[in-house]
């Protein structure tokens, strides 16, 4: 464990406060200067803002679609296992491969989305350029992210829902609670811990992932859809500037740390309760 995760992690910390390049130059201690440079860097600020806003909006989208699907999957249905298998495909397919299909759907020339919308008379030329325009690029990335993640949210919410004993629902019904009151007073408190774990897991997963942006817009046009992981990759690996790249990636750590501390406290409180 120490060798596998802790050592690289501290090496990363070391990189971020020194001057290391792929060429092997060890420029000595640089203090927090890389972080200071980043704060003043317009591209990085844009990437940070994109990363946070992408993740935030994507989580909302995934929550809405996921909760809806979870309630559907609670029902008895012939062939549910097979239907569920199909519904899980966005999550279970490797994203770098399913993205190819999205590239086709967002292609400037052959966009099937534009075709469908035009034939439904919902859109007329000029069609949006899904991968070359700042706003539409953002929308495209967000769409793919939500598409990819909603089955997972559904499964997590479902795990929460099925952990509630069914007599709790019956009791709420007998007491005359409607859907929203049941949701607020019975379901939410019971499933909150599980949802919370799922959320932490998914946020770290979403915020750290560069695949979608890399393959869809590569951060373009310009740096309009740039995100921190991709910028760190381009700076650290393609540009060979390990220190700046590491500093970029580590900016996220405080955010993750807060989430993890929350998680720990929750766990301890729960164990104390039982």
């Amino acid at each position, binding site marked *: *464990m120490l060798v*596998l*995760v802790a*050592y*690289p*992690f501290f*090496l*990363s910390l070391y990189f971020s406060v020194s001057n290391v390049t792929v060429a092997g130059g060890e420029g000595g201690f640089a203090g927090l200067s890389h972080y200071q440079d980043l704060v003043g860097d317009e591209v990085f600020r844009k990437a940070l803002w994109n990363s946070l806003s992408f993740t935030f909006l994507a989580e909302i989208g995934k929550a809405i*679609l996921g909760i*809806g*699907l979870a309630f*559907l999957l609670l029902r008895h*249905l012939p062939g549910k296992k097979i*239907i569920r298998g*199909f*519904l*899980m*495909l*966005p999550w*279970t*397919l*490797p994203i*770098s*491969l*399913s993205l190819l*299909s999205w590239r*086709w759907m967002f292609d400037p020339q*052959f966009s*099937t989305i534009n*075709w*469908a919308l035009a034939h439904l008379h919902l859109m007329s030329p000029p069609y949006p350029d899904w991968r070359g325009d700042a706003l539409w690029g953002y929308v495209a990335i967000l769409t793919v992210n939500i*598409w990819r993640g909603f*089955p997972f949210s559904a499964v*997590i919410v479902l*795990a929460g829902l099925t952990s509630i004993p069914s007599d709790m629902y019956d009791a709420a019904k007998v007491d005359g609670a409607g859907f929203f009151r049941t949701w607020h007073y019975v379901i939410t408190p019971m499933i909150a811990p*599980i949802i919370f*774990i799922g959320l*932490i*897991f998914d946020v*770290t*997963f979403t*915020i*750290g*992932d*560069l*695949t979608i942006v*890399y*393959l869809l817009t590569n951060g373009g046009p310009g740096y309009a859809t740039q995100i921190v992981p991709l910028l760190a*990759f381009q700076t*650290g*690996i393609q540009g060979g500037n*390990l220190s700046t*790249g590491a500093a970029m*990636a580590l900016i*996220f*750590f405080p955010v*993750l740390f807060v*989430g*993890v501390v929350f998680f*720990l406290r929750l766990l301890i409180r729960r164990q104390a309760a039982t």
Partner: protein
Amino acid sequence: MSAVGSRTRPVNLRKLRRNVLVGLAFLFYLFIALIPIWWMVRATFVADYDLIDLTVNPFWFRQPLSLVHITYLFEHTRFLTWYGNTYLVAFCVVLITLVLCVPASYGLARLRFRGAEGIGIAVFMSYLIPPILLFLPLNQIVNNLLQLPNSKWAMVAVYPTFTVPFCLWLLIGFFKRVPIELEEAAVVDGASRWQAVWQVVLPLTVPGILTAAIFAFTLSMQDFLYALTFASSSSQKVLNTGVPTELIRGDLYFWGELMTAALLAGVPVAIVYNFFLDHFVEGITGALR
């Protein structure tokens, strides 16, 4: 009689309306989930002409279907090499993960000292450190320390950083479910501690070990960042990086071959993953039980 009829009918109607609504909702979700995959399937089998003719309905086809994309993929690209690399890497990662995790998780599950619980939580926490924080130092380690620049073996060395924490966490849970009395009974009957573990405990945890193996397998087949960082020459690539980077040359897209490759590479992973999805969720949410 008529009173009974008039009482049951509205109920049936309501039930019917409800079922129709549920059915429509399911169709809506299926449509969202499957539409990109449908385009993969379609592009695999239709002729090139149908793919680039803008007057053809992109949901369907006009020319006769063909298998030309599939044969091209196998005969003129490195697709098979990437396929081989992917499964070789995944297989080695599974082996390494199990060798590291099975003894360690048994130890952690049986130890009764203060802080054993803490180690368990720390293991889970380390799973939450995303690859993006580790890939730069790992790159240095792989290039300078292990001398594996640009090689598929670099992936074998690096993937355990995410498979080990998760599988360790999963296996601790499984080992804890085997009562320690079973082991003690075996020892009383004259077995050595080693025999007790090998012949009594391990057979009972086979399902858990199998689950961990499957997960190490699917997790390593889902990765993109490390594969992109550590193997850049064509012969060393795995499917996830080879297909999207090698089959697109500049602005030229071989759509038919691209989609075929994505379909053939992705579907086996998706199927295996799906069978074990419940265990995966249990592994994540189980932290609270």
